[in-house]
């Protein structure tokens, strides 16, 4: 069995090398690292927002010393014109009203929440410390998590399908039906090689963008989540590649997966867009599992891991079924 598995792994490696899969992964790794270190982190390195308060009647009694008072509405407008990242609070009518010159209140909850929190600095609510990350480290972990999720869910998925479509078009899958080997090894070899490749990618991406010291503490959790996502995507890719007629049909399925699977997850997790049904979206939980792993917070859901294992088992059964069907096909 080991001899057969080694032969299959060696062949799959050659297929991936000839399909430029590793080269493509390396290219993405360099691209992501450059983006994180020379783009995203610099862009996200914003100073604290200034908060300006116009409160002629003195209705706000307990304001933070971080708030800067202005003497008139005109002065508030003038200062916000100059400091476009700032947040204005107009309390002239008694009830505080937020004033922005960039963005809207709906899309900029962070700034709105921060500004309002400064009006009640000694309130009952105490901030809970959830981690000791610096803002830069937090930003690095967030973007690395997003890029890793995208890489495995979209790019790696495309890679496994491309390799299998190649073998399918050459008809060689059928030859394996009459070879003296356990047929499941053919699938196992592909899963192992894609899993290993995703794990190596996850390690390199995390080390390069989060740093060696932080990586060491979060790596086991990140690798576990990466493995779950990688197996689910690889099995989905195998099913699609075996079921669909050609790569053109696959690209349509790929578009559907990209639009309906990845987009809502990213929108919900990274923007102010609220999707009430997102908790029913399985990939949202997988994404959050990966994100929690980057911040060293284990998943508290009791159904998450059994759910992942069940999904992998169902997909594996599906792959075996379509694989057997493919072996029976004629020219």
């Amino acid at each position: 069995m080991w001899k057969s598995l080694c032969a299959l792994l060696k062949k799959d490696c050659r297929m991936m090398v000839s399909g430029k899969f590793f080269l493509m992964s390396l290219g993405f790794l360099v691209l992501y690292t450059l983006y994180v270190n020379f783009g995203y982190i610099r862009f996200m390195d914003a100073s604290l927002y200034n908060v300006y308060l116009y409160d002629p009647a003195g209705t706000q009694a307990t304001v933070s010393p971080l708030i800067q008072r202005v003497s008139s509405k005109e002065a508030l407008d003038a200062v916000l014109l100059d400091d476009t990242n700032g947040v204005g609070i107009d309390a002239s009518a008694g009830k505080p009203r937020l004033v922005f010159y960039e963005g809207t209140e709906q899309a900029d909850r962070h700034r709105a929440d921060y500004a309002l929190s400064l009006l009640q600095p000694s309130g009952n609510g105490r901030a809970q410390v959830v981690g000791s990350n610096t803002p830069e480290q937090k930003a690095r972990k967030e973007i690395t998590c997003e890029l890793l999720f995208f890489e495995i869910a979209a790019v790696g998925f495309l890679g496994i399908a491309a390799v299998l479509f190649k073998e399918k078009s050459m008809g060689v899958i059928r030859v394996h039906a009459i070879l003296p080997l356990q047929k499941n090894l053919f699938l196992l070899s592909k899963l192992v090689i894609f899993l290993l490749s995703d794990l190596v990618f996850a390690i390199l991406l995390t080390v390069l963008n989060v740093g060696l010291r932080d990586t060491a503490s979060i790596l086991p959790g990140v690798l576990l989540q990466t493995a779950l996502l990688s197996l689910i995507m690889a099995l989905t890719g195998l099913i699609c590649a075996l079921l669909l007629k050609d790569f053109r049909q696959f690209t349509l399925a790929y578009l559907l997966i990209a639009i309906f699977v990845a987009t809502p997850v990213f929108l919900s997790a990274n923007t102010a867009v609220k999707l009430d049904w997102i908790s029913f979206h399985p990939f949202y939980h997988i994404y959050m599992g990966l994100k929690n792993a980057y911040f060293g917070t284990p998943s508290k859901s009791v159904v998450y891991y059994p759910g992942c294992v069940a999904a992998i088992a169902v997909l594996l059964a599906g792959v075996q079924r379509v694989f057997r069907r493919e072996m029976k096909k004629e020219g």
Partner: protein
Amino acid sequence: MIEVKNLTFSYSKDKQALHGLDFTVEDGEIFGFLGPNGSGKSTTQKILTGILKGHGGRVSLFGQDISAAHTQAFFQKIGVLFEFPYLYANLSAVDNLKYFSSFYPREQLRRIEEVLEELEFKPDFFKKPVSSYSKGMRQRASMARALISNPKLLFLDEPTSGLDPSGAVLFRKIIEKERKKGTTVFLTTHNMLDADLLCDRVAFMADGEIKALDTPGNLKERNSNHRVIINYLYQGRREEKTIEAPELKTGIPFAHDEIISIHSQEPTLEDMFIQYTGRGLS
């Protein structure tokens, strides 16, 4: 080697592909399985090679019931040439053979170069990718894959398809050589010449049934009208006469100056196929 009794198979409830086949293939025999597309040839071969399961009737290979026969040990004993040359296009013939042979016990394998040379494969192409090969060369590389493991039972599906005439002659020689070694060959083909020249016995398949099964010679003889056509010259004129073959026992039974040619009116295997199945091989 192969024993099939009342073999039935259905792809779905209303699509029965095989209707009770009965045949045996002896050790070292070349058995031809002839039939048009959709007649059930490939289905039968897939059942025998363990690709299709869920058949009815009794099938045994190597003296063992088929349900227990499809083990790794079974696959080590068979070689299969598919109708199309399925190979890794990005690998060379040598690398393809190295890969496919890696699943067999080493002591069972033939030398890759020896097999390729036997198939008159151009040495320049040994290490070039299959994508650069002609159709004939791909077929040779595929045949090499089927032969590399020294199989005891060889399933050949249209072995000479895609080959030029000299390639087809070479393949027939190799199949003959395999028979001399004691290999049993199950040959599925449309090619009547291959069947006629190679097979010890042939089965005519149509609509999932075996319509006739015998040696090619017997099938033709049984249906021969035992007549010969003689072209000859007599008194400066070219003439033709049809006579009963037994009349030749005492020599040419009519006056002539010179015999130009004698043609037996024995039917071809294709004529026999049409007669038994009511259709041609297409």
